[in-house]
Every structure is written in C-alpha cells, then in structure tokens.
C-alpha cells in the first residue's frame, strides 16, 4: 500500500512534508522498544510507536524502515523532526491509539513486520 493512502487511513499529520512519500509499504511494526525492532523487525516496515527519543530516527535509518508514525498524539520534539529530515525518514503523528492504529492497518491488509 502506498504511503499517502496509509497516512490517510490513520488521519495522520505529516511532520516532514519535504520528504519523499513514494514508499510502498507491506508490513508494520508496533512497539515502544528499540531493542525489539533490532531483534524482530524486518526491513521496509512502517513503525508505530509512542516512544519519543532521538534514537527512534537513528534506528529507523540504520535498519531501513520506511517511516515512523507516532500514535496517541505523541508529538516529537523539533530535534527529532530535524533528525528525521536529515536522515530522510518521513515521520507522522496520529491521534489514534496504538491499538486503533494497528487495527486500521491490519483491517486494510498490512502484515506484521516480525521476521520470525
């Protein structure tokens, strides 16, 4: 599914308008644990999280994730937005909770990014 469609489904706000939105996404990882992304998340996934830490962007960039959506209206700091722009990782914020965001994406056919 293309990224603009996903962002529409989540009714999410784009915090990095300048970045490329052409990604095609098939898998989702939902977690607030960076260690879990490293241990179980495959490449190309959309990452749903409520964790606000600059390491989020580093992690997404290092592990080839497509983008990050902050759930529950958790708005990242300008420092995180700047890091995302520099590393070219599109980031978004949605009012939906983790549970609701997962439900919407699951219902529309996206799969788990768990590689095990």
């Amino acid at each position: 599914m293309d990224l603009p469609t996903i962002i529409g489904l989540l009714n999410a706000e784009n915090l990095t308008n300048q970045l490329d939105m052409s990604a095609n996404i098939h898998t989702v990882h939902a977690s607030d644990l960076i260690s879990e992304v490293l241990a179980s998340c495959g490449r190309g996934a959309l990452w749903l999280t409520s964790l606000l830490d600059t390491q989020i962007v580093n992690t997404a960039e290092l592990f080839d994730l497509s983008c990050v959506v902050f759930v529950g209206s958790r708005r990242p700091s300008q420092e995180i937005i700047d890091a995302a722009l520099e590393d070219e990782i599109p980031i978004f914020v949605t009012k939906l909770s983790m549970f609701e965001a997962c439900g919407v994406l699951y219902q529309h056919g996206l799969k788990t990014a768990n590689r095990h």
Partner: protein
Amino acid sequence: MSEKALFTKTFTVDGGDFQNAGSVSKQVKKILKQLNIDPDTIWRVMIVCYEAEMNVVLYARQCEVTLSIYPDRIHLKLADEGPGIEDIEKALTEGFSTATREMRERGFGAGLGLPNIRKTSDMFEIESTVGVGTTLNISVLLPE
C-alpha cells in the same frame, strides 16, 4: 577464513553520550554502502554494530571499535573500559537485563542485545573482566 584485512578503521564510543549514540553505526553503514556491500549483509552488520554500540553507551565508560573488512567477512572488535559482565551466560540469555529505569524509558534494556548479536552474527566471541571491561569479536560472513 582469510586473514588479510582489505580495509580497517577505528572509532571511539563514549559511555553515556546519548547525543552521539548510533553515530559509529551510521559511519560504518556509510562505509559499507560505499564499498557496495549487499544490503542484507549491511543490515546484519548494523544489528550487531548498533546493539554493541548502544551497550557501550548504556553501560561502559569508553570503547574502541575496529571495523575490518576481509575478502570473506566483515569483522567488528569492540574493546571497552567499563564494569565488565559478571555472568556472561546470564547476559546471553534473552530477557536478562541489568538496565536502569532510564534505559528502559529510552526503549532499551529488554535483555535482547547480546543474544541478538550472537544470533545475527556468524562468529561471536566475548571476554569480560569485572571492573576492567568487555571485548567482543564479531564477524558477519559476506555472501559467496
């Protein structure tokens, strides 16, 4: 395994430096991309490199990281000065962690780090002396 490194570079990681955490992994990724290493291998190297780098930031005082590229593998040596690991077998058990609350709030400390490094790499050696430090030697084989 062939022994002559085609490329070697050394980096330093400072314990507790969250501002620059991940920067060595980023530099390593850039080098591997420039050398046209395949994306799957880079991704595996990133898992071991970032896990190990974050372990230094979270637990150690300082660490020298040496990246060596051989014709058949990518090797990382991390030699840190730090508290060392009391029980290596325990530290290699998934879920075992000595992380503080602050580390967990930052998304780390789930006790997945060292087990994940061992699982993802093709060669993994760990030596540790309590009160002195820990040395990791890790290799990821290049596809034939």
